[in-house]
């Protein structure tokens, strides 16, 4: 779907992805959650305090915490309850989800495209989770890698927003993998995730990268309501036709779910 990445020669001639542009800064609450929950003895009160200082983010967290992907039967109504019920790993995932949706990524004139990229990203994150479960690989890591695989797209748009619109979109398509990996590194996410983001349009044999590539395709298929899956990727991940069929069938539900967030 995307044009191939630049060759080294083209790269030298082209403007750099993030030329003199600041990487998006995580909202303070999200940064606190990421930092706090990655410690062995994390403190729920600190996380609650950080969220209380950012009502928009708190409201957002409650809304997502109540989506079927995260929580079961009983609705979450308080921050205290959300933080203690969700636990560290879910909070980490949520913090990143919310960070992706905040104004850090807003670019006037490109709102519709960026909204579409994030809905696609959430769907890819959910698909990556399912693929990881099938492969008995790490579920949280797959979700984050899927969720963030296109995070570089709005970053490139932001960095080059002053150029003509067509040029901006072309640059974003071409450079978003590398830009996204820089974001992941700046946010101190595991290197495996940064590598998967960087390589999601390149040839790879790394299982996490392949997982993201397949999740990307499945999310695209779900949006277009198509029922195919790329055979090369599923073969590389050793997913047999019945498993792939099961994943593709989840498409409409995943797409709807991604739209709710």
């Amino acid at each position, binding site marked *: 779907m995307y044009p191939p990445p630049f060759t080294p020669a083209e790269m030298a001639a082209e403007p750099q992805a993030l030329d003199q542009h600041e990487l998006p800064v995580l909202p303070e609450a999200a940064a606190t959650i990421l930092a706090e929950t990655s410690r*062995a003895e994390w403190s729920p009160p600190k996380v609650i305090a950080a969220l209380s200082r950012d009502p928009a983010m708190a409201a957002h967290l409650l809304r997502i915490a109540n989506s079927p992907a995260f929580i079961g039967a009983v609705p979450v109504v308080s921050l205290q309850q959300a933080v*203690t019920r969700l636990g560290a*790993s879910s909070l980490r995932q949520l913090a990143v989800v919310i960070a992706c949706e905040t104004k850090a990524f807003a670019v006037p004139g490109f709102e519709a495209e960026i909204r579409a990229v994030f809905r696609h990203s959430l769907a890819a994150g959910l698909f990556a989770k399912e693929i990881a*479960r099938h492969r*008995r*690989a790490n579920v*949280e890591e797959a979700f984050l890698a899927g969720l963030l695989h296109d995070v570089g797209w709005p970053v490139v748009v932001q960095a080059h927003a002053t150029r003509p619109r067509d040029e901006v979109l072309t640059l974003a398509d071409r450079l978003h993998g590398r830009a996204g990996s820089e974001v992941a590194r700046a946010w101190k996410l595991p290197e495996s995730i940064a590598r998967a983001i960087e390589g999601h349009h390149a040839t790879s044999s790394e299982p996490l990268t392949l997982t993201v590539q397949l999740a990307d395709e499945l999310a695209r298929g779900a949006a277009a309501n198509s029922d195919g899956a790329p055979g090369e990727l599923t073969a590389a991940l050793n997913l047999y036709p019945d498993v792939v069929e099961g994943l593709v069938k989840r498409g409409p539900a995943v797409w709807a779910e991604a739209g709710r967030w």
Partner: protein
Amino acid sequence: MVTSVDVAVIGGGPAGQWAAMTAAEAGKATILIEQEPHAGGECVRRGTIPSKTLREAALALSTFKAKSGGVVELSFGAHLQLESLMRRKTEVIDAHERFLTEQLARAGVVTWHGRARFVGRDQLEIVTVSGARRTLSARTIVVATGSRPRTPPDVPIDHEHVLDSDSILSMTYLPRSLAVLGSGVIASEYASIFQALGVQVTMIDRAPRPLGFLDAELSGVFLQDFTRAGGVFRGERRHTSIEFDGVEAVTVTLDDGSLVRAEKVLCSLGRVANVAGLNLAAAGLEVNGRGLLDVDRELRTRVASIYAVGDVIGPPSLASTSMEQGRRAMRHWLGQLDRHGAETIPAGVFTIPELSCIGQTEAAARQVGPVVVGRASFDRLARSHINAAPHGLLKLVCDGEGRQLLGVHVAGEGAAELVHLGQLAMSAKLPVDTFVDDIFNFPTFAEAYRIAAMEVIAQRRPSSSRAA
């Protein structure tokens, strides 16, 4: 187009490999069908090899201080990245897969990557991962599809907070605490490995002691070391509910009302045979009440041309047993006589400490007749003290005369290697005196055989000692 061969083997784990190699080496056209891309199966990639690599790291870290005489202090924090302890695993796996592939090719085995299903007693349909189909007809078919972790209906395995033995090593970080459901080989191996890495481990099982199939003294040594390292064993208990309750903890409620809270839960409550996609009915086969394939002494199913070997016919789910079954089935089909029986296969359990045995347990032997038992505690071995590993036991179970070995049981460093000496003595029917008459290297763990043998000889009745 139908491909015709002498032997088709379904499954490339230890049982299937040995069946295929035995047939191919006898000149039979043999095809091995494996659903994973590499020989050895995915279990090599996510089970046996990574777990043994992690175990080596755990052993090295946990014994480093002791072995260096306390000269070097070593500490690592909680939430250490698990992957960093298994960096070597890729090399180990690659080397092992290369070896397996070469070994199969050298024997003349052709490997197909795909899933097989019966379409008749002597015909299989193979579906590749990309969906292509081909038909294979064979004079004999060996089912060696193995097993996978059982998912009990009341254990909410999500591979994120509640894991099984296939997904446990996908954890990114070492958890602070781990509850292990079960006390079989896999449960005990992971429980002791994670405990050695500083994780607070609680084992929960219905059985009164872990590893119930082993000689009671061996499981005793395991339990002693596990609890000394800080582990907790909750025997004769069952879970009544398991819930991920929020702040990084799963709560396991036990049938006595007590709660075990742990960051992660490992469910290791048995394994089930992989038969779902085989379409057994087309071959005239069906599974028994336990979901396994029934076989006779020669490992034939009720269809004479179809054999079943390895985990698909049930416990003990050990690679050594599976290899022997694969080999024996094909030797039977080839009409080659076999002097070996099942009792000459050792069992190795890679817990910390290592446990291994061959032959009868003391309890089983006593049901048949009088026995003489000799023991060597590892604290009597110079080698043990040098290695800073003085906990261990070698136990010889002999007949009532105190001459012939009925069983050998070893717990402690090097147990899985050490048992092979006893195995050869049993296989060659050597009297226990051999261990005293022949001189072993000093200082070695093998000395334990001499000490235990002397204890056996000392118990001989005067009349029988004159007979020697």
